[in-house]
């Protein structure tokens, strides 16, 4: 059984597809459930997996908290659970086999570190931040990581920060207004978006405001979706931190190992993707588009 | 009669110098009313005179803008109807104001349901409901939702609720009845009066509003007349004759035109509509009916005799499941009203509140809608044309309103009825079915409407008119069809056409 968050973005869909493809390759029968971004649906799905008596469960949790009761239930039914993508907070580490988690804080740090290494950022650098959905873990942690690094660079400052709900349309709309509120974007040195979609929307807004994204205004974000590589290749965007959607492989590895009797898996396997820049963008775009 | 009331004693309830304004209307100007225990007090006036408004002010539905209300010698003011009920004023409002979704029993006892262990005792409630209704000669399934019954039954239920003893409130001291008899038959009216007389004996003061002057003389002790929102006068019934009363109400004398010749009787005129063995489920059975062109036919019968059902059937609201129907020489089958209207058949329905009025729209729009619907949505009636139509009928039917833009929902009951009637007259169909068209219409306008109907006949329109008022039917019908238990029992015309013969035919069953 695989309890997925939903299909709210292209990234998420690639993630689901990669898990399905991986299962097929290994001849595993996969029960897939889409929770439509709702934790309650996800818990329901996991419980019905338990009722069906599946061999193992993979959860890509919507939020970090709230998993204790259902994990206990799985444990009682002796079904191993692997957590992928996001983290979960539970007191009792024996409730799951392992977590294969992306580290959102680290992603924020990487983005900030790169940005601070740029020549434009050495003097006064005003940054606009496009946040993810208010309350989403990814948004909170990425902001945390980014701000951590920023704290060490007094010349850099986030002057505007607003949510654009992880979507391209909102990214464009919010950026449009923010630029106007900042005297048409004069004196802004960078845009930091919590995901590529928002950045892509914002890039359009920046262009329409008569500025050159990627040059007058640096653009950095997280995810590494194909469209963003294209934007980087065109010189409109500067950098992105990859969020690896291919979590299916490692998860199945762990499960297969566990079912064969290997019980001492590490409790946390961290995966943070690399930072991609304009130089490799064109090649990466070709590669990823074919996928 | 008059010395029954101890005029020296203090009035039970007094309204003084009451003012009430609505946007554009001074509904009440210095209106007054005084009520004594143990009297039936008729409150009379034209449509829109302000009777219902006075009643609403008196019972806490509306807040007065000026004046005072005295109960005994205590000045009171009610914020909600509940407050008024608490001190023993029980009211039956003009439109049936009950809850169609609840059962009959629940409607009767809402707010004072019999309880057992703190919970509503539905069995006891149904039992009490049956008992209460039997005093009105009504034997119906009290657990069925109210919406399943005809307006007349609903009206009776409303009255029964009004006279039912209330729990948790002072016993009824004042009973207000706003046009309770508008849709009742002669028989029910008598039963109602029986009940009223009983209540009177018990010392209840009763306010009785009606447009039937005969009933006024039958039951009331005193009369208050209103006109244009003002108090006109207070009289002892015994000392005021009908002509004087009419003059007081209208401000002028009404030349009596009743009992004129019916629509010009062309003997053997062709029939415009013919029904043979027409039936529809349980509601109409094997009906043979011929409606002659250019004449008015009356439809008489008791409550629930199936008159409304015939109208519905002929208008395509119900589907026939047997028999044949032909209109203007062609066999037709009706499955919806739009078809009927396209053919030239129109129905002015009985229940204006749910089937007639489009409350939020203006008088102008309400009047022109049917004509507009007949023309189709793309051929729009110009606003000027609509205005003309509206102005014509406002003038003709004496609709009391500041202008044609007032939403119909804010008119007085009788005036609403006039607007609905005007709507169908404006369509000028070949056959017009009128189901209780004069419900709640004052006597001035009544005469005007009869006149109009006669005119229409002369212009070649045919009519089928249902009415509980036999006088009215005989006034213009060339033929009267009498219904009993959903079957046609008699057809009267020529010499036989008088109230007594109709009564005899209606009563036929019990003989």
């Amino acid at each position, binding site marked *: 059984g695989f309890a997925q968050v*939903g*299909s709210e973005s292209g990234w998420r*869909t*690639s993630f689901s597809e990669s898990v399905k493809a991986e299962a097929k390759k290994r001849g595993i029968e996969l029960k897939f459930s889409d929770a439509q971004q709702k934790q309650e649906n996800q818990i329901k799905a996991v419980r019905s997996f338990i009722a069906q008596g599946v061999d193992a469960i993979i959860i890509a949790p919507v939020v970090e908290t709230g998993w204790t009761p259902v994990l206990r239930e799985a444990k009682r039914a002796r079904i191993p659970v692997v957590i992928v993508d996001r983290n979960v907070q539970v007191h009792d580490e024996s409730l799951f086999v392992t977590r294969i988690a992306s580290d959102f804080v680290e992603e924020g740090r990487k983005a900030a570190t790169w940005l601070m290494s740029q020549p434009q950022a050495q003097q006064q650098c005003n940054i606009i931040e496009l946040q993810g959905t*208010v*309350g989403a873990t990814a948004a909170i942690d990425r902001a945390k990581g980014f701000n951590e690094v920023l704290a060490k660079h007094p010349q850099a400052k986030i002057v*505007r*920060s*607003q*949510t654009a709900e*992880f*979507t*391209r*349309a909102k990214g*464009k709309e*919010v950026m*449009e*207004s923010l630029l*106007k*509120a900042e005297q048409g974007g004069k004196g802004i040195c960078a845009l930091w978006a919590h995901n590529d979609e928002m950045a892509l*929307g914002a890039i*359009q807004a920046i262009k329409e405001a008569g500025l050159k994204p990627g040059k007058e205004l640096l653009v950095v974000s997280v995810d590494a979706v194909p*469209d963003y590589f294209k934007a980087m290749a065109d010189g409109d965007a500067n950098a992105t931190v990859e969020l690896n959607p291919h979590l299916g492989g490692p998860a199945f590895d762990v499960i297969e190992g566990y079912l064969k009797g290997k019980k001492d898996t590490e409790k946390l396997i961290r995966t943070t993707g690399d930072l991609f820049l304009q130089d490799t963008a064109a090649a990466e775009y070709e590669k990823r588009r074919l996928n | 009669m008059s010395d029954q009331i101890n*005029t020296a004693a203090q009035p039970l309830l007094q309204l003084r110098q009451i003012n009430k304004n609505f946007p*554009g*209307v*001074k509904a009440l100007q*210095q209106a007054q009313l005084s009520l004594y225990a143990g009297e039936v007090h008729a409150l009379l006036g034209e449509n829109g005179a302000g009777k219902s408004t006075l009643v609403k002010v008196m019972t806490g539905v509306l807040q007065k803008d000026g004046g005072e209300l005295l109960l005994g010698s205590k000045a009171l003011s009610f914020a909600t109807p509940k407050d008024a009920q608490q001190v023993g004023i029980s009211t039956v409002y003009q439109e049936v104001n009950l809850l169609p979704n609840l059962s009959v029993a629940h409607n009767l006892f809402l707010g004072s349901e019999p309880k057992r262990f703190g919970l509503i005792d539905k069995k006891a409630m149904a039992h009490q409901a049956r008992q209460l209704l039997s005093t009105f000669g009504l034997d119906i399934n009290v657990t069925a939702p109210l919406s399943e019954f005809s307006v007349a039954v609903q009206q009776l239920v409303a009255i029964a609720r009004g006279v039912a003893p209330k729990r948790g409130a002072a016993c009824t001291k004042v009973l207000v009845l706003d046009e309770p008899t508008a849709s009742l038959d002669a028989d029910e009216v008598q039963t109602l009066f029986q009940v009223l007389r009983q209540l009177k004996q018990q010392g209840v003061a009763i306010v009785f509003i009606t447009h039937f002057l005969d009933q006024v003389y039958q039951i009331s002790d005193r009369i208050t007349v209103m*006109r*244009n929102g*003002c*108090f*006109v*006068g*207070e009289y*002892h019934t015994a000392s005021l004759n009908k002509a004087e009363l009419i*003059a007081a109400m209208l*401000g002028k004398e009404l030349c009596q035109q009743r009992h004129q010749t019916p629509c010009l009787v062309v003997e053997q005129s062709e029939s415009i509509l013919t029904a043979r063995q027409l039936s529809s489920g349980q509601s109409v059975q094997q009906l043979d009916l011929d409606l002659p062109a250019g004449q008015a036919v009356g439809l008489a019968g008791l409550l629930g005799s199936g008159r409304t059902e015939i109208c519905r059937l002929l*208008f395509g609201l119900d589907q026939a499941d047997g028999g044949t129907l032909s209109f203007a020489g062609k066999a037709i089958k009706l499955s919806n*009203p*739009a078809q009927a*209207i396209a053919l030239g058949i129109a*129905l002015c329905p009985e229940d204006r509140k*749910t*089937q*007639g009025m*489009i*409350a*939020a*729209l*203006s008088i102008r729009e309400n009047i022109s*809608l049917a004509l507009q*619907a007949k023309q189709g*949505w*793309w051929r*729009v*009636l110009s606003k000027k044309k609509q205005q003309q139509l509206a102005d014509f009928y406002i003038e003709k039917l004496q609709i*009391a309103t*500041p*202008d044609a833009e007032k939403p119909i929902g804010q008119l007085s009951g009788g005036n609403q009825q006039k607007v609905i009637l005007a709507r169908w007259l404006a369509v000028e169909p070949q056959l017009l079915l009128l189901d209780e068209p004069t419900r709640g219409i004052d006597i001035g306008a009544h005469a005007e409407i009869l006149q109009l109907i006669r005119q229409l006949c002369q212009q070649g329109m045919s009519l089928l008119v249902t009415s509980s008022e036999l006088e009215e039917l005989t006034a213009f019908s060339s033929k009267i069809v009498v219904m009993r238990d959903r079957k046609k029992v008699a057809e009267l015309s020529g010499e036989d056409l008088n109230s007594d013969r109709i009564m005899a035919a209606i009563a036929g069953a019990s003989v």
Partner: protein
Amino acid sequence: MTSEATVLNSTPEQLKAARQARYSPGQSAHQFSLYLYPLLALALLLLVNLLLDPQFFSLQWQDGRLYGPLIDIVNRSAPVALLAIGMSLVIATGGIDLSVGAVMAICGAVCANLLLLGDWSIPAVIGLAVLTGLACGLVNGLMVSYLGIQPIVATLVLMVAGRGVAQLLNQGQIVTFQNPDFAALGSGSFLGLPVPVWLVLLALLIMQLLLRRTALGLFIEAVGCNAKASRYLGIDDRGIKLTVYLLAGGCAALAGIIATADIQGSDANNAGLWLELDAILAVVIGGAALTGGRFSLPRAVIGVLIIQALSTTIVVSGLPAKFNLLIKALVILLVLMLQSELFRHQLKSLFSFGKLRGGKV
């Protein structure tokens, strides 16, 4: 005990005079206040913006088009304005259409995929998208009018399934395309104003003509007010209901086209997400009753402008994003209260009370 106040027999002139004294014509329709309060609310919001950003009202001519925050608000209102136009009609019949957001997504997906296929002309793409919208409207309309399913659930079905259909078309990805001509529908400009604004004006004009120059608008109001009485009048109430859902579907399709053209891509999951609520809100702020009856398209559009001005204010205000919902809630409540007569009365008396006291001191 007999008393008389008025003479019994009066002349017709006297009678007429008595009537006229009672009625003052022309009071029945107060169109004025219906527009006054929504406009007042809008003005207040814009004023707040002006305080936050002194250049808020500035307009520049740049690249052959007007440019400035005000234009942005109007431009960003376009999709919701289109939805609100359709929604007005649906609400006027006493219904509600929750599916418009999903329909936007479907139509957007149709556009994007057709454009990717390449050999489709822009008018054909638009035409097909609008047809898709109409088809969705047809589904809703049939369910509501002929199956008699309650509007909120009937359209909930398409709200859930529609997004699935859109994602199916896009295979879960965001389908992007490069087509400057099509993109111009979202971000281009014409005679100085953004194209979406023109589209809304056009739609408004056509709808207004369709509804008010024929009897359709009146029929819609009649059906919404009392469907049974309308049927007795010979109005085809089912047909009318079907029509409004069709029109709402068509409007949603246009909105979907604009949204897709704007970001040059179709985002099946997020396009139009929760916009149905904004559209309903706008219609109600515009003064319509959800139980059906009277409607006004211009007022609904004013409602949309209020909502959009509010979101812009929130963005411009620089407050942390977590305050967004709270502010939105409070402003909406205020706008609604302004429309309540009782509240205005209370405000007034509060104000005059203050003045009185001020006078005494």
